[in-house]
């Protein structure tokens, strides 16, 4: 951190200024002139919070994707299908039993099992053939998408929020001022706050697991140099299976989350595959922190874009990706 400040004094000042302006825009009540220029502050705050929540969802999907990529150097283009499968299974389970929290465990186990099957049946047999692995995952995603369309049809499903998480929460943030000077505070759906908190907690746990435990050490070593890790006596195949199962399970859980605060419908698999691709390209392949940063950036860009420039929100996302590729091809936090 201090090294970065010493190397880029100008960049640090600019970044500090930007952070200060954004914080001011979030915390302070907006003066009247600003409200006419940018619209209501409530809209801005909602876009920011929706963006961060969407970023949390993207992080759930993309962190597994980036770990698998970093470790195995293969792109699992069926990752979006795992997300969709998790969403459908979570919906069925929650509908049948009414236990929303338990559905996370069940979906994690089922989708992780699918991931293990993929690893054993596909990737292990084609080790080192990157292109072929990628092509096979495309084929699998086509087949899975059609089978899911067959079973669940084209309609959209919404997973019901449990009672204790439904309804709004008032946040200690000023959304605006009434005519008589009363302060209006921002309200936000409780379930989204819960998703946000849970994602941050999960991210911290993953970071701790990666940096403070033995298996995390093995995974990091595998990302850096897999052959060397194998040569020093570690059963790399076991590490691979664990990571693949974990990444797939996370994608499945993200399916429940997505089905709760958006909806589950055929075609979402491609949307989330694309989101993971962009997040991982922006953040840097194989980096968890990069995935978090990229996910928040893309989530914010999508939401702010859809509020302030509806036609061009996709272009904004794409522009971020193009800029990162042009100036830092390895991704913001990639090595």
């Amino acid at each position: 951190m201090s090294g970065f400040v010493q190397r880029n004094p100008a960049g640090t000042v600019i970044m500090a200024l930007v952070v200060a302006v954004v914080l001011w825009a979030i915390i302070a009540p907006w003066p009247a002139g600003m409200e006419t220029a940018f619209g209501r502050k409530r809209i801005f705050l909602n876009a920011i919070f929706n963006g961060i929540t969407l970023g949390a969802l993207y992080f759930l999907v993309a962190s597994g994707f980036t770990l698998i990529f970093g470790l195995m150097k293969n792109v699992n283009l069926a990752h979006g299908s795992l997300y969709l499968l998790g969403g459908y299974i979570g919906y069925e389970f929650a509908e049948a039993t009414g236990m929303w929290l338990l559905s996370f465990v069940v979906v994690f186990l089922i989708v992780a099992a699918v991931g293990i099957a993929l690893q054993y049946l596909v990737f292990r047999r084609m080790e080192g053939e990157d292109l072929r692995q990628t092509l096979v995952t495309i084929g699998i995603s086509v087949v899975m998408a059609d089978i899911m369309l067959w079973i669940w049809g084209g309609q959209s499903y919404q997973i019901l929020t449990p009672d204790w998480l439904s309804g709004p929460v008032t946040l200690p943030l000023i959304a605006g001022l009434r005519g008589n000077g009363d302060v209006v505070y921002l309200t936000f759906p409780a379930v989204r706050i819960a998703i946000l908190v849970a994602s941050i907690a999960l991210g911290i746990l993953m970071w701790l697991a990666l940096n403070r435990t033995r298996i995390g050490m093995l995974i990091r070593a595998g990302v850096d140099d897999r052959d060397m890790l194998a040569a020093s006596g570690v059963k790399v195949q076991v590490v691979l299976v664990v990571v693949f199962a974990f990444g797939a399970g996370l994608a499945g859980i993200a399916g429940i989350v997505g089905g709760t605060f958006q909806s589950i419908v055929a075609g979402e698999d491609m949307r989330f595959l694309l989101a993971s691709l962009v997040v991982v390209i922006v953040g840097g392949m194989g980096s968890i922190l990069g995935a978090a940063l990229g996910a928040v950036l893309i989530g914010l860009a999508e939401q702010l874009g859809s509020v302030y420039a509806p036609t061009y929100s996709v272009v904004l996302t794409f522009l971020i990706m193009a800029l990162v590729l042009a100036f830092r091809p390895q991704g913001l936090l990639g090595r």
Partner: protein
Amino acid sequence: MALAERPGPSALSIGALGRSGPGWLERIPTSYWVVGVVLLCMPVVANDFILYQILGWTFILGMIALSLMFLGGYGGMVSLAQMSIAALAGYMVAILGSSGVQTISLNWPWWLYIPVAIFIAAVFATMIGALAVRTTGIYTIMITLAIAAAFFYFTRQNYTIFNGYSGFANVVPPELLGVNWRTPIPFYYLALFWAVVSYLAVVYVARSPFGLALQGIRDNPRRMSALGFNVFLHRVAAYTFASVIAAIAGILLVWQNAQISPGTAGLPAVIDILVIAIVGGIKRPIGPFIGALIYVLLRTFSPDVLQVFGLPDDRFKLLIGVGFLAIVYWSPDGVLGLWDRWRARRSRTRDPMASTGGPS
């Protein structure tokens, strides 16, 4: 390795074709004559549906997949954005030429809007190439897939230029030479002509100094760079060249359907092009056309095929997906690879003394 694919005497030497000695006719192998005569005489035996829907569509999809094959097979860059490039050219024809959406279309004459459409598509592809070649291997697939998806979502959201969800209808070819090019037989010959031109162009470029350098870069970029070749420019130029083929196919596609909408370049369509190229075989320029024929036949007759397996009629994607998986799993070179292996085995069993049973 692509150089040694087709042994010398049986190869169609376009270089010789250009210089046109009396010997060049004899150098064309028999299979070319057979295929050529069959394709030229097709309208005599085939009905309108086969000419227009099956073969016309095969040529168009084959050309788009051919542009992918050129990048993937000779350049080692599997680009999934080729369908988007084709769709952009189609959109440009609808926007610059005439369509049912009078508020957007500019009604330019055909000799202006066709070159401009191809040019815009080529510029777009060059920009994609400049971005995509900064990374290699699977990263290229990821980036081009992301670009293709962005193009799809952008055309669906943008109403001022691309007319959003509904796209453009009533996009018809100009009535050149008093011929309505949307009738089956003229359209068949039009598509056939451009398919043959693109095929020959790819064969020619693959043997030109540029194509050879590109194949060298595919096999070992560092060595080519050390030899003084500009790796970056060669790769980007490959994108530009491939995009022209894709753009022509895109224009034919919009004429054939008389409409274009975001779904034309949606992600399923993008992946279909990859499936076509891989199933046909990505090592040789004829592969994409074979793949396209298989795809179109399956797509047209899938209800019958599915009934054989006892599945409902609309599970076409399942059929394509399983077929694609089977091909990638057992024959990474596609159908052409199967064919080569079958020939090699046959020539081995027939004549144990023959050392090579290579493809002809």
